[in-house]
């Protein structure tokens, strides 16, 4: 047992570091640091996706025949850790990490040939049509209906909390194609062109002041049956497969460590009047850091199991729960560190392209919005309460 990486893995780490240094522009880095929402805006995010794609690193998790780099789990770890350390843009995951694996796993060859290259290159920008106003945690109660009419489905209904729907040209959605015995039956997984007539998008501002999510309305929207992924009525299975990806197959500890470092640096600087001199703040930083250490070890235990071909077990819910709680702890600490400068609300966006001098130092701008937006971490992707239900059932066998 050891925590050290092999010489080849170290060489790979250096290669990743070098490539990031070469291709991450100061503009991208600054924009990322000053973005208080989950994902970077597409101009920044897609610029980074293109840079990764150029190197063949556009989709680390994909199989090699679809353009994946054929990395070992350790290489993926190293890549994610280096990206976090460097502060690269947070590319919207809906394409590469969410719909991509579903199309790879369940899509037709035609769908794979058409969509996958466009995800890799950043030509397509995806959003996820899952939640509905009446279907949050109880997702499978969804009511948006797709009725077969010749070679089309005609879709009516509404989706909500749709991240970056206002930027996306495509949506993957769960829609009801029939009423089964169980509410999970009769759901289909469908790919929708956002320019199709009958689709309208309404912005929803989050409490941090950001426009990241939307409500999307479907009014007799005609989508070719050929856009359905896999079998009709099996969409719940595909959608759940994808949620597993959303729930913690990712590597979060490195990013959390960087987020804590940002707050620690602020606390040590004159810009917060050296908040770290308050021992309560200093000790809370250690508490959060230790929580990140524990999470990192859990992630490494999963990684190690994957490396040796073992099944890591139902830990993804466990990890999702901890990641969301620790993220919130970091943002809470941030608010306490900046003190009364947190009172200054800056409504304009993006912070990295303001047309005026903000009232407080630029680096303090995202702190309160990050905390406020961050309340969603324990809600989206299955709320913490749902995660605890899953742990009780799947991990504890209750």
């Amino acid at each position: 047992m050891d925590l050290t990486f092999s010489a080849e893995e170290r060489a790979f780490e250096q290669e990743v570091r070098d490539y990031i240094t070469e291709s991450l522009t100061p503009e991208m880095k600054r924009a990322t640091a000053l973005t208080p929402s989950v994902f970077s805006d597409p101009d920044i995010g897609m610029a980074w996706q293109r840079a990764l794609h150029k190197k063949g690193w556009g989709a680390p998790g994909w199989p090699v025949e679809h353009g994946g780099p054929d990395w070992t789990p350790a290489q993926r770890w190293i890549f994610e850790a280096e990206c976090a350390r460097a502060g690269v843009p947070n590319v919207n995951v809906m394409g590469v990490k969410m719909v991509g694996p579903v199309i790879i796993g369940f899509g037709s060859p035609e769908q794979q040939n058409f969509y996958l290259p466009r995800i890799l290159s950043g030509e397509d920008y995806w959003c996820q049509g899952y939640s509905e106003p009446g279907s949050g945690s109880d997702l499978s109660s969804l009511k948006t209906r797709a009725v077969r009419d010749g070679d089309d489905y005609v879709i009516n209904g509404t989706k909500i909390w749709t991240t970056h729907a206002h930027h996306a040209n495509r949506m993957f959605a769960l829609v009801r194609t029939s009423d089964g015995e169980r509410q999970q039956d009769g759901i289909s997984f469908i790919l929708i062109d956002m320019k199709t007539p009958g689709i309208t998008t309404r912005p929803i501002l989050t409490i941090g002041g950001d426009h990241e999510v939307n409500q999307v309305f479907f009014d007799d929207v005609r989508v070719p049956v050929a856009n359905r992924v896999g079998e009709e009525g099996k969409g719940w299975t595909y959608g759940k497969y994808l949620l597993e990806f959303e729930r913690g197959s990712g590597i979060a500890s490195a990013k959390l460590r960087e987020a804590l470092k940002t707050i620690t640096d602020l606390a040590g600087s004159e810009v917060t009047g050296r908040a770290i001199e308050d021992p309560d703040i200093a000790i809370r930083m250690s508490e959060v850091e230790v929580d990140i250490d524990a999470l990192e070890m859990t992630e490494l235990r999963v990684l190690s199991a994957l490396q040796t071909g073992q099944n890591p077990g139902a830990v993804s819910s466990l990890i999702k729960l901890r990641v969301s709680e620790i993220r919130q702890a970091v943002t809470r600490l941030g608010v306490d560190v900046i003190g009364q400068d947190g009172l200054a609300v800056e409504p304009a966006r993006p912070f990295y392209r303001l047309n005026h001098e903000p009232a407080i130092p630029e680096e303090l701008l995202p702190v309160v919005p990050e905390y406020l937006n961050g309340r969603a971490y324990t809600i989206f992707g299955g709320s913490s309460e749902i995660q605890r239900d899953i742990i009780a059932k799947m991990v504890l066998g209750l």
Partner: protein
Amino acid sequence: MDLTLSDEQRLLRDSADRFVAETFNADHRKKAASDPLGYSPAIWKQFAELGWLALPIAEAHGGLGGGAIEIGLLMEAFGRGLVSEPFLSTVVIGAALVAECGTEAQQQAILPRIAEGALTLAFAHSERAARFDLGHVDTTATKTADGWRLNGSKIAVLDGAAARQIIVSARVTNANGASGKLGLFLAPKGTPGITTRDYARLGGGRGCNLDLKDVQLPADARLGDGQDALAAIEIVIDRAMAALGAEAVGIMQTLLDTTLEYTKIRKQFGRPLSANQVIRHRLADVAMQVDEARSMALRAALMANAEPVARGRAASGAKAKIGKCARFVAEQAVQLHGAMGVTEELDIGAYFKRLLAFDTLFGGSAHHYRRHAALSGRVQA
């Protein structure tokens, strides 16, 4: 990067789990609790035969050359059975202090005897005024014509009753009383001037407080060649905390398993307790904290040989975090057992008390978060 167990490690874990399950049941614990020695010499002999006492000792000194991971595997199994044999005192702390500080001749004389089960040790270091500061030692050792004279008081000496020799830390003072380096002195049990007040330790095993009044020791009683012992004590206690963390994980896992079982069987309002969401969520939190503790104990073991700051941060981080998790897990296990949980009729209480003892040993969570912050340069030490 590989966190999977080797074949040898798997064998060790399996044999430890088996031995503990067969030997350390509730009946055994009841007997051990009233034993003034606090442990069974017959079982200790079996530990020696299984090679466990030789585990971390260097091969040159009759040992197996194992490390913190192997110690952790044993300690986790010990936790499951609430083993009260003086393994931590003798092997994890005692042998390690001798290996870190002793001269080659001292190591040759002491370590093989530990490995073969012939020698038990205890470490008398903590003092009431020091609280958890490892560098605060008021006990003095004064050089005399033919050796050393020790004076002072020690508390929380683990397994003092079981020890044939006690390693006593003392501030070496010169003739005019000025204090100097920290020294470690081997005092055989029964040395005149040592008074012990022995007690049954919270959660099992024995402990004692001891007073040293003009204790005369020979010149070669001091471990090593006169170097200051604080750095070695810090290494050894950091590793001991990693080992204790693994033991705590074994205890917590047992409490989780037992509580899960109980909530499935116990029926109220016509259905099992575990059918209630409030109970299920609580158990999910318990499981999560057990898993976090597991990760932290493993991390501390993997960092046991790192440079001092990284090692200390890992050890204190683990001690603080596992302590916090342990208190939560223990308190919830009692809570979910209802009134039965606060009786001596179930095992739950014994496990609860061992975790409470764990949290305070070598400093509680608050102390170790503070040490972590100090080692990270965030607060003054």
